[in-house]
């Protein structure tokens, strides 16, 4: 496994009365695999990724339990620089809005070369040459010209390619992509998704892809973890998930997508809204919104049921594998 997360719990608030914003999350990503982590705002997907990167904002959320293994090494409590020093640094991350991640007053080439310098220990012409190579890798045309450009001179899609180039400077074994296409137009999004899939194949890189968009998940992921209220509620291969969603939340998410309902009079909805962290302390976190809720769901934490190999759902009464319309 390139990345293995076990029972990760991230909490905020005082030590004596912690509020879990990520609660017992476990997943694995194999070599060259893309794991899609899908969920709505506030479900804990970004906090999970920041914990894995060692980038949780300080002071604030902290890892209260669990373990993160990166290519076989336990990095749970290591700061980013300690990871680099210990040689576990081959993980990188890209974010939703490339403009806020890039320095607006520095040339593209220098920003890529900076990352090259940190990881390869080379500078000057060698670093610029590597920057050129990285731009070719992310398919930026006229790389030599673009090295001298400033971020504002590039389109949103090109800026995201630059961020990917910077991320690739450390030759990552694992790339975390947190909603990297959410701010992009669909015709540009499809290109960036294609680029990520291609890099994953060519460099044998593993990707943790975080999104709220089930369509993007269907297009890119090999395996999927669905998150709700700080927990992973369903894990499956992408085909199994879309053919036979077993958790009521997964099914609800699919049903309320307009694309599945073209021309329908009314969209199916999930009643109510997502709970605030810590608001639900007993029973299933999805119970207040679940259409199939039973008395048991309100009092007992739902079991993790293995439905088939690699397909698990956190539900006492999982769906019986009906295919969504």
């Amino acid at each position: 496994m390139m990345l293995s997360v076990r029972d990760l719990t991230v909490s905020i608030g005082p030590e004596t009365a912690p509020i879990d914003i990520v609660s017992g999350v476990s997943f694995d990503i194999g070599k060259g695999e893309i794991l899609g982590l899908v969920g709505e705002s506030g479900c804990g997907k970004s906090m999970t990724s920041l914990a894995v990167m060692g980038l949780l904002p300080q002071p604030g959320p902290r890892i209260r339990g669990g373990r993160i293994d990166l290519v076989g090494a336990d990095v749970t409590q290591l700061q980013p620089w300690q990871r680099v020093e210990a040689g576990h640094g081959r993980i990188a991350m890209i974010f939703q809005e490339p403009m806020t991640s890039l320095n607006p007053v520095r040339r593209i080439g220098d920003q890529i070369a900076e990352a090259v310098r940190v990881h390869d220990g080379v500078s000057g012409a060698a670093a610029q040459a590597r920057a050129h190579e990285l731009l070719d890798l992310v398919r930026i045309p006229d790389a030599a010209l673009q090295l001298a450009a400033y971020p504002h001179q590039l389109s949103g899609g090109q800026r995201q390619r630059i961020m990917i180039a910077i991320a690739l400077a450390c030759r990552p074994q694992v790339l975390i992509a947190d909603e990297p296409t959410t701010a992009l137009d669909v015709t540009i999004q499809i290109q960036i998704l294609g680029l990520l899939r291609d890099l994953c194949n060519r460099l044998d890189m593993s990707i943790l892809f975080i999104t709220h968009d089930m369509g993007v998940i269907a297009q890119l992921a090999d395996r999927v973890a669905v998150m709700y209220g700080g927990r992973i509620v369903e894990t499956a291969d992408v085909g199994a998930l879309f053919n036979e969603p077993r958790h009521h939340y997964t099914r609800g998410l699919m049903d309320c997508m307009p694309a599945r309902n073209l021309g329908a009079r009314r969209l199916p909805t999930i009643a109510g809204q997502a709970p605030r962290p810590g608001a639900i302390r007993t029973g299933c976190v999805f119970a207040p919104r679940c259409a199939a809720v039973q008395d048991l769901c309100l009092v007992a934490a739902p079991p993790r049921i293995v439905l088939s190999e690699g397909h698990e759902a956190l539900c006492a009464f999982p769906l019986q594998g009906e295919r969504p319309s």
Partner: protein
Amino acid sequence: MSETLLEVRDLKTSFNVKRSGRKYRLKAVDGVSLSLVSGEVLGIVGESGCGKTTVGRSIVRLVQPDSGAIQFRGGDVLGARGAALRDVRLNLRMVFQDPYASLNPRRSIGDSVAEAGDINGVFKSRADRAARIAETLSAVGLEPSFATRYPHELSGGQRQRAGIARAILPAPAVIIADEPVSALDVSVQAQVLNLMMDLRERLGLSMLFISHDIGVIGQISDRVAVMYMGRVVELSDARTILDRAMHPYTRALMAAVPKPDPSQRIVGVVETGEPPSQFNRPTGCAYAARCPLASERCLAEAPLLRPIGPDNRLVACHNL
């Protein structure tokens, strides 16, 4: 026969922008004509910078167009003053994208919802005002008690409901909704879309529904206008466009929407290209550089919107 409520003719709106020390005139909307009949939802779909938002903002006079005509029930909108302007303001109401930015954080929900009524002297008494606020909040699925709450106490979905309540309070004829569900999570988005469809039926509203999301547009619209680089490139019934798009851009846009079906993967298959710079509009068709059908003529001459085929459809393309 339905009445034509809103008529937009050859609308052009541009902005001064500065880039690298040079001044440019950015043509955000470059000759758009649309009409909206009563009870209808017209969807405007397109990508960032295509001018769809500027069309909406020009209609409600948030930005001043360079030229063109806008008529509401036959009356001039752009030159309206006094009582005529008041009529326009109460009848053409806008719902904005960001429910966090579009409500004043220091005003109670009730005051925000009632603002247009207060300014235009719609309410007969304080009791009438309170009753109208309560009634409007109930219509959008909020408890009347929300009137005394403030925006920070509301979730995103609730705020957007408040934004819709503000728009419908003066019983308008037309709602102009600019990406009203784009900032919402998908489960909440479905709730708000359903609300808008309910209101349309119950109140007989007409809507100009602006969105980048083909799925959302297809859900709510009767007719759809597809915009690219400030112009309408295809205009037809929603079903016709969604099932049988003709303009090469519309086709690319539809093909690029990630389908929620892992057996229909398009990643690495669909080629879409980059849009041209907005500061250097090509002389010919703005889509030519990305278009698989582009010919010599496309580079030289901009295509006009013309009827093609039996479906009452308008397309701006030389090659169909």
